[in-house]
C-alpha cells in the first residue's frame, strides 16, 4: 500500500533545558533532531526567558536550519500562550516584556498580565486556552483578539494521546468559529526523544521539591512531549493544522544577527570622535608615564595599538574602562587591569594597568587581533572591600537599562546531581548526606557504582541502579542561573531591547539573561569588575607609607633576595606552600621571573609535566631544545616549555596550521573541557595538523595533555604579568616595611593562606615588635609605627564595632577608661567589655585580666531602681599563669604574643625524643627526625594524586610534612583532624631553603592541648 508523504511541519512550542527543570534536551540536540526529522523550522520558546537564544542561534546557523525565537508565558489571569518574534521590533518588544515580567517577581519567577501584551507589535501569538470551557466565557482571548486583530493570533492545539482528541478537535472548531481565528498544531516539546521521559519526571520532582512518587498528576501522563516524527503527527492532527505551522514559521524571519550592539560613548566630548579622544588621552598618559620621554619602541607600539583599536572600532570600549578606572582612582579605590587587552601600552598609559611594557618585555601577541575575532578582554581587579562601590557607580552612570551584570549558567556537578536525584528518588536525608559525602573524593563527571558501594549502598539494588542512571544523566545539565562574579555589560541603546534583564538575588543588582560565554557569540562586550583582597592590603600599606603603586622602586635586588629565600608569607600569589617551595628553586631575579613564578604553579603546567623540565633547563642541567622551528618561535622565552595558556594556542596555530577561527574554536573547546570532557573535533585536527608538519606523535599527545591541564586551570601571560606586579609590590613592602605590611594584612583579614597567628609570627621573625591590644592605645585597626605594630581591637573576636567606636570616641574626649565608666557613661556593652578584658585590653589599667573580668562581671547598667552594687575591693584571684594567658589569647584573639603553646609541652616532648623543628631541619638530608607541632595547614591538591601536605609549627619554626597517598587512609584521623601531631619522618632537603619531612609515623597528641586551640586552615 502506498503511504502518503509526510506532511510539512514546524514545531512552534518547544522548551529546552535552559528553562531549568522544565525540559531535558539542550538546544543543540533539539535542533539536530528537528532537522533530522525533516521539520521546516523549530521555535525555541523558553518559559519567560531568552536564556538559550544565542546558543540556539549559533547552532542553527552551523547546521543551516531555520530557528524561530520566542517564549512561553503564563498570564496572571490564567491564559497560557506562546509568543514568536516576527521582526526586529518584535524582538525588542519581547525582551522588554520579559524584563518587565521578571522585575515584578523574586529571582526565578515572573508576573505578567494581559494588559502588558495589548500594545505589542512585531510578535505572533499562539494561544493555548482550556478548550473544555465555552469560548464565549473567555474574555482574555476576546480582548487580545480585539487588540491584535486576527492576523497575528492563532489557537494552538496540543494533542498528546490523552484519550480526548476528538473532543478537543470539536471544541477547537467552536473556538475558531467564535473568535474567527486560525488554528495550528503544536506539541509543547520538553524532550528531544521519548527515552528522556525518566529525566523529565525527575526534573519535575526537583522543581516541585517532592519525590517523583509523590508528584502525582503534575507528572506528564506519558512521554509524548518530544519531537515526534511527522508521520506520527499526521496520524493525530488534521493536515491544515500542521500546514499552518509552516505558514507561521515562514512569517518569522527574524535572526539574532540583526541585533546591533553599540558600546556606550563613555565620557567622550561631543566635539571629538571617540578615537580622537582616546588618542588624546593616550598621548597625555604617555607624557605622564614617561616624563622624560617614552622609548621609541613603546611609542611605536602605542601607535600600532591605536591603529588596531580604530580598525576594529573598540575606542569606546577602552574609554569606558578608562572612565571606570578613573572613578576608582578618584575615590582612592586601588585597582588594576589585566587580560589580553589590558597588558598593552595603551592600557598602561591610560592607567588601567601598571605593568610597564618597557620593563616587562612582554609580547603583546594577544592584544586585539582581527584574525582571531576575539572581543577585547579586560578584567579589572578592585579592593575586595570596595568593589560594590564601583559596580553601583556603573549602574548609576549608565542607568539600569544600559548596564547589567552578566549571568552565569550553573550546571549540575556530581555532588549537586546526587543531592537532587537522591531527593527525587525518595532517599532519606541521612542517605543523601552519605551519598554526597562520598562524592567529595571523586574526580571526573561520572558516578560509578563502586563508589556507592564504598558508601555502604548495594549497587545491585534496583533503587541504587536507578539513582546512578539519573545522576549520570543530570550531570552537566543546567541547574540554575547565577550572576557572574563581576562581568558587566554596557550598551548605548537600552540593554533590555537586546537581552532581557532580571533582578539578581543580591539587592541593587540586575542580571542579563545570557551567560557570559554567549555574549561573545553576538559580539557584546563585557568588562569584568573583580574583587581582590591583596589590593585592599596594598591600598592600606601604601596609604601608611604615603606612596602610590607607581612609586615603588623597580627591580630591587633585596626584594628578589628575600623571595629567593622563600620568605613570602603574605606576599600575593606566591605565599602558598607550593609557591614557597618553588621560589628558592626558581630563584627569581627579575620581573619576568615573577611572571613565570605566578603561572608555573598551576594545574595546567603541573599536569602537563612542565615544571621540572623548566627548572632543569633554567638551572642549566638540561639542554634547551625545540621539536621544530614553529614551536621555537612560540616557546623561546620560556625555554622550550609551555607555561602560559596562550602558548598552547599559538602552537596550534603555528605548528598545526590552525587558522584564526579554528584557534578561537580551540580556545572555546578548552574552556568547555571541564563541562564536556573533551576537545571535540579539535583534538583530531590538532593531531593531524602536527603530523602533517612532521611533529612526532609523542609530542602531539603531550600537547593534548597540556591543553587538558590548561583547561583545568592555567594562566595567560598577560594575567600573570599583572599579578606579578602585585607580587612585586607586596614583596617590596614586606621586605622594606614589614610592620606596615603586617598591619595591612591583619586589617584585611580574612584573606590569603595564613591566619593572624602565623602572620604575627612571621612579623616577629622579621624583627617587628608586635604590641598587645590595649584599651588605652589600640585603635579599631592594627597600626604600625616604625618597626612596631600595635594590634587593633578588631582582632578581638566577637566585638561589636559600634561599641568600640563609642569607646574610641570616649577616649578621644579624654574620658576615663575604667570598665564602669565605659559601661555607664560611654555606653559600651558589657559583653564587649568582657571580651576586651579576656583579651587583655585592660591589663595595663587593672593589673591582670582576671581582675578586670571580675570587675566587669559585677557591672550592670544603671536603672531607676537601685540594684545591689559590687564591692570596690580588688578580688583575691591570683594572676593567670602563662598557660592560662596563652589559652585566653588564642580564644579571644586567635594568636598569642606570649610563649608558643608548644613551649609548655616541650619538657614532656623532649623526654619522648621530639626535637624542635629548627633543630631537626639542621640535620643532613635523608636522616630520620622526630618533630611535633600544631597543624596550621592541610592541603590535598587535585594535582597531587591523593598526597596530603601538612604544615606544622612549634616555638622554633615551621615544617612541611608530606603524607603519601597509601598512608593517608591509615592515619586518616590525625591527618584530617589532629591539632597537635608528633611525627617521625625522613628529612628531604633541596637546597638551603626547601625542606620537607616525609612522614613515616604520626601520633595525634591533640588531647594534650586541653583547651588550647590553634587556628588551622584546611584546604582540600
Amino acid at each position, binding site marked *: 500500500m502506498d503511504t502518503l508523504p509526510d506532511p510539512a511541519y514546524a514545531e512552534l512550542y518547544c522548551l529546552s533545558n535552559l528553562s531549568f527543570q522544565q525540559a531535558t534536551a539542550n538546544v543543540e540536540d533539539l535542533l539536530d533532531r528537528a532537522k533530522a526529522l525533516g521539520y521546516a523550522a523549530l521555535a525555541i520558546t523558553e518559559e519567560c526567558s531568552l536564556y538559550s537564544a544565542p546558543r540556539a542561534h549559533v547552532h542553527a546557523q552551523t547546521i543551516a536550519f531555520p530557528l524561530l525565537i520566542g517564549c512561553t508565558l503564563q498570564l496572571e489571569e490564567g491564559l497560557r500562550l506562546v509568543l514568536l518574534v516576527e521582526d526586529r521590533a518584535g524582538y525588542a518588544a519581547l525582551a522588554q516584556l520579559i524584563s518587565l515580567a521578571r522585575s515584578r517577581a523574586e529571582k526565578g519567577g515572573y508576573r505578567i498580565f494581559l494588559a502588558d501584551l495589548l500594545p505589542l507589535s512585531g510578535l505572533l501569538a499562539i494561544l493555548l486556552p482550556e478548550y*473544555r470551557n465555552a469560548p464565549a466565557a473567555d474574555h482574555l482571548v476576546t480582548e487580545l483578539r480585539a487588540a491584535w486583530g486576527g492576523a497575528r493570533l492563532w489557537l494552538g492545539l496540543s494533542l*498528546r*494521546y*490523552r*484519550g*480526548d*482528541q*476528538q473532543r478537543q*478537535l470539536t471544541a477547537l472548531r467552536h473556538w475558531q468559529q467564535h473568535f474567527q481565528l486560525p488554528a495550528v498544531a503544536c506539541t509543547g516539546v520538553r524532550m528531544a526523544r521519548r527515552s528522556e*521521559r*525518566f529525566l523529565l*519526571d525527575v526534573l519535575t520532582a526537583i522543581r516541585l521539591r517532592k519525590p*517523583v*512518587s509523590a*508528584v*502525582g*498528576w503534575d*507528572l506528564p*501522563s*506519558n*512521554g*509524548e512531549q518530544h519531537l515526534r516524527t511527522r508521520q506520527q503527527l499526521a*496520524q*493525530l492532527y488534521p493536515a491544515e493544522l500542521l500546514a499552518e505551522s509552516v505558514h507561521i514559521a515562514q512569517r518569522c524571519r527574524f535572526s539574532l544577527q540583526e541585533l546591533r550592539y553599540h558600546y556606550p560613548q563613555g565620557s567622550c566630548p561631543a566635539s571629538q570622535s571617540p578615537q580622537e579622544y582616546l588618542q588624546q588621552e593616550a598621548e597625555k598618559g604617555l607624557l605622564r608615564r614617561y616624563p622624560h620621554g617614552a622609548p621609541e619602541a613603546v611609542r611605536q607600539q602605542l601607535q600600532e595599538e591605536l591603529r588596531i583599536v580604530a580598525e576594529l572600532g573598540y575606542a569606546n570600549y577602552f574609554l569606558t574602562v578608562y572612565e571606570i578606572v578613573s572613578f576608582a582612582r578618584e575615590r582612592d579605590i586601588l585597582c588594576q587591569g589585566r587580560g589580553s587587552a589590558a597588558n598593552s601600552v595603551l592600557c598602561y598609559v591610560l592607567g588601567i594597568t601598571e605593568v610597564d611594557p618597557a620593563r616587562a618585555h612582554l609580547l603583546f601577541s594577544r592584544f586585539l587581533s582581527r584574525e582571531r575575532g576575539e572581543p577585547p578582554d579586560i578584567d579589572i581587579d578592585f579592593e575586595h572591600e570596595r568593589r560594590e562601590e564601583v559596580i553601583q557607580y556603573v549602574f548609576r552612570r549608565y542607568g539600569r537599562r544600559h548596564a547589567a551584570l552578566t549571568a552565569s549558567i550553573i550546571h549540575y556537578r556530581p555532588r549537586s546531581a546526587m543531592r537532587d536525584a537522591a531527593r527525587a*528518588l525518595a532517599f532519606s536525608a*541521612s542517605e543523601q*548526606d*552519605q551519598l554526597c*559525602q*562520598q562524592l*567529595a573524593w571523586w574526580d571526573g563527571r561520572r558516578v560509578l557504582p563502586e563508589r556507592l558501594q564504598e*558508601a*555502604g549502598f548495594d549497587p545491585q539494588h*534496583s533503587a541504587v541502579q*536507578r539513582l546512578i542512571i539519573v545522576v549520570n544523566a543530570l550531570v552537566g545539565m543546567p541547574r540554575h542561573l547565577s550572576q557572574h562574579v563581576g562581568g558587566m555589560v554596557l550598551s548605548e541603546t537600552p540593554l533590555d531591547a537586546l537581552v532581557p534583564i532580571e533582578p539578581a538575588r543580591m539587592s541593587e543588582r540586575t542580571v542579563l539573561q545570557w551567560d557570559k560565554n554567549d555574549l561573545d557569540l553576538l559580539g557584546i562586550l563585557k568588562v569584568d569588575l573583580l574583587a581582590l583582597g591583596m589590593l585592599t592590603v596594598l591600598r592600606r600599606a601604601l596609604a601608611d607609607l604615603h606612596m602610590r603603586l607607581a612609586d615603588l622602586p623597580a627591580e630591587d635586588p633585596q626584594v628578589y633576595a628575600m623571595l629567593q629565600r622563600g620568605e613570602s608569607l603574605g606576599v600575593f600569589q606566591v605565599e602558598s606552600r607550593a609557591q614557597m617551595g618553588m621560589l628558592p628553586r626558581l630563584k627569581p631575579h627579575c620581573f619576568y621571573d615573577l611572571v613565570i613564578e605566578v603561572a608555573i604553579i598551576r594545574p595546567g603546567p603541573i599536569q602537563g609535566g612542565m615544571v621540572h623540565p623548566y627548572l632543569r633547563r633554567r638551572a642549566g642541567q638540561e639542554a634547551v631544545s625545540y621539536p621544530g622551528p614553529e614551536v621555537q618561535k612560540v616557546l623561546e622565552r620560556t625555554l622550550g616549555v609551555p607555561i602560559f595558556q596562550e602558548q598552547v594556542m599559538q602552537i596550534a596555530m603555528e605548528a598545526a596550521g590552525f587558522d584564526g577561527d579554528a584557534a578561537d574554536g580551540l580556545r572555546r573547546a578548552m574552556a568547555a573541557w571541564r563541562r564536556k570532557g573533551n576537545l571535540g573535533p579539535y583534538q583530531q585536527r590538532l593531531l593531524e595538523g602536527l603530523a602533517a608538519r612532521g611533529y612526532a606523535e609523542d609530542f602531539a599527545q603531550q600537547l593534548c595533555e597540556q591543553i587538558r591541564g590548561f583547561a583545568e586551570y592555567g594562566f595567560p601571560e598577560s594575567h600573570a604579568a599583572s599579578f606579578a606586579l602585585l607580587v612585586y609590590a607586596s614583596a617590596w613592602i614586606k621586605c622594606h616595611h614589614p610592620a606596615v605590611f603586617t598591619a595591612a594584612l591583619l586589617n584585611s583579614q580574612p584573606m590569603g593562606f595564613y591566619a593572624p597567628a602565623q602572620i604575627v609570627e612571621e612579623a616577629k621573625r622579621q624583627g617587628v615588635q608586635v604590641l598587645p591590644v590595649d584599651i588605652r592605645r589600640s585603635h579599631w585597626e592594627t597600626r604600625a609605627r616604625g618597626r612596631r605594630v600595635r594590634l587593633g581591637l578588631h582582632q578581638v573576636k566577637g566585638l561589636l564595632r559600634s561599641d568600640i567606636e563609642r569607646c574610641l570616641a570616649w577616649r578621644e574626649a579624654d574620658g576615663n577608661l575604667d570598665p564602669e565608666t565605659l559601661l555607664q557613661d560611654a555606653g559600651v556593652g558589657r559583653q564587649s567589655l*568582657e571580651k576586651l578584658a*579576656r583579651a587583655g585590653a585592660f591589663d595595663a589599667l587593672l593589673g591582670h*585580666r*582576671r581582675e578586670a*573580668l*571580675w570587675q566587669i*562581671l*559585677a557591672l550592670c547598667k544603671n536603672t531607676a531602681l537601685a540594684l*545591689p552594687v*559590687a*564591692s570596690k575591693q580588688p*578580688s*583575691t*584571684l*591570683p594572676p*593567670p599563669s602563662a598557660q*592560662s594567658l596563652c*589559652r*585566653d589569647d588564642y*580564644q579571644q584573639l586567635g594568636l598569642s604574643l606570649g610563649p608558643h603553646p608548644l613551649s609548655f609541652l616541650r619538657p614532656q616532648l623532649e623526654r619522648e625524643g621530639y626535637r624542635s623543628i629548627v633543630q631537626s631541619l639542621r640535620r643532613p638530608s635523608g636522616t630520620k627526625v622526630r618533630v611535633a607541632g600544631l597543624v596550621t595547614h592541610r592541603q590535598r591538591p587535585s594535582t597531587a594524586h591523593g598526597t596530603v601536605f601538612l604544615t606544622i609549627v612549634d616555638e622554633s619554626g615551621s615544617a612541611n610534612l608530606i603524607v603519601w597517598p597509601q598512608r593517608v587512609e591509615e592515619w*586518616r*584521623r590525625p591527618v*584530617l*583532624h589532629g591539632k597537635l601531631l608528633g611525627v617521625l619522618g625522613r628529612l628531604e632537603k633541596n637546597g638551603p631553603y626547601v625542606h620537607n619531612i616525609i612522614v613515616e609515623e604520626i601520633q595525634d597528641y591533640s588531647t594534650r592541648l586541653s*583547651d588550647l586551640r590553634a587556628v588551622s586552615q584546611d584546604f582540600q
Partner: protein
Amino acid sequence: MAEQWLAVIFPALAAELWNLDGTLPGVWIADTRQRVWQMDAGAAKQGIQIGMSAAQARALAPQLQVMQRDAEREFNLLDRCAQLLYAWGPQVVALQEWPHALAVELQGNSRWRARPQALLQAIREFAGERLRIRLGLAPTSLAAALFAWQGKDGELCHGPADRSFTECWQEIPLKLLPANDTLHARWESLGLYSCGDWLRLDRRERALRFGPEWERFLDRLRGIRADPRSPWPLQEEFVVAFPLLQEVSDWQGLRFPLRRAFQELRLRLRHRASTRWELLLQGRDAQYRQLLHSRDPLTSAELFLQLWQERLQRHPWGFAARHLQLRAMDTENWAGEQGAFWEQNLLREQGQLLDRWRARLGVDSIYRVQPRADHRPEYAWHSVVPEESETNTALPDLRPRPLWLLPEPIPVSVLHEPETSELERIEGGWWDGHDVSRDYFRWRRSDGAECWVFRDRRSARYFLHGYFA
C-alpha cells in the same frame, strides 16, 4: 542518719539506643546547630567528638550512621530503669539538669547496706554491653550525679573513702556543672576550676556575678538547702483477676463477671482510661487470650460489653473457663468528654459503629478506599484506615475511567485495531520498578459489555482492565 543517693547516668543513651544489637559501626547524633551532640563508643573510637561540626564528622568517618533522637524510646528506657530502682529505694527522681540521669534514695535500705553489689550488678545487667552507665554515690542527688560524671564507665564513684563529703565535694570540677558555655568560659578565665575555688570567694560577690541560681545549685549540691523533686511515676498495673464462681463456656455466662471486672478496673483507673484491653480466660487445660481496641477510651460499661460480645461471639474460646483476668493497657489521663446536650453526636456514633465492626471482624478488615495521584490506574487508589482524613487527589481533568476496575489486567483478544484518536496513552512508574507503557481505549465486547482495554506497547498484547457498563 545522712541521706544517701545513688545517681545512674547514661552518658550516651540517645546514640547507643540505635545500636543495641551492635550491628552498626557507630552512631552519632547532631544537634540543631549541626554539631555532634552525642555518640556511641564506636563513633568515639573513630575520632568523633562532642561539639565537632557534622560536616567534619562525616568527613572523618563517612561509614558511621547519623541518627535523630527518639525521645519516646529514651523515655521508655529511663522508665524501665526507674522501675528497677524503685525496688531498692522509696524515691526515684529524674535529674533534669542532664538529659538521661536518675537518682534513687537508698537511706535506710538494709538490702543496700548488706549487699551494695547486688544493686550495682542489677543496674549493670540492665545496661548490658551496649549502654554505657556512670554511677555515683553521695549524700545529695546532685553530688551523686557529679561524682558519677567524674567516674569511669560502669564503676561506682563516691569520692575518696578516707575523707568526708564536706572535704571532697570541694574538689568537684566546675566544668562538670550543667552551665552554658559562656559561664564555663568565665569561670575558666577567672581561674575558677573547682567547687572549692568557688567557695573561697565571697558569696554575695559570687551571686552578683554569676547569678543566685548557682548559689542555690551549690547549696543543694552540699545538702544545705532542700532539693525537692517530683518522684518518677511508679508504674501501676491495672489488672483485675478472679476465679469464676462456676465454669463459663459462652458469652451469656461471661457477661456478668466481665462487667464486674470492668467496673472494678474503672474504680482503680480513676482519672485514667484505656483504648486497649486484654482478656485472659483460663480453663482446666486451656488458655484463651484476646485483645480489644477501641477508637476512643472506653468508659461506658454497656459499650464495653457490646464490643466484647461482638468479638467473643465471632471468636469463641471453646472451653470451660474457670478464671478471668482483665487488663487495661496503655492507660492515659482521661478527663471525660464535653458534648452539647441537644446535638446528636454523629461522629461519635460513627466511631462506635466502626469499633463494633472492628470488634467483630478484626482491626485490619475495615478500610476505606481513597484516590491517589498516579496516572497508572491500578496505583490510582489505595486503602486507608477509616479515620484518615480525605485528600483531594482526584484526576484533575475529566478523562473517562471505568466504574469497575479489575484487580489485575486480564489478557484478552481484541479483534480490531483502535482508532488513534480514541487512545489514551499512559506511561510511568519507572521509579518503583512498575513501569508501564499502555494505550487505553474503549471496546464493546460481543456480549455488549463496554470494556476498558489497553494494548501493552512493549509486548503488543491486549488486556482487559475494567468495565464501564
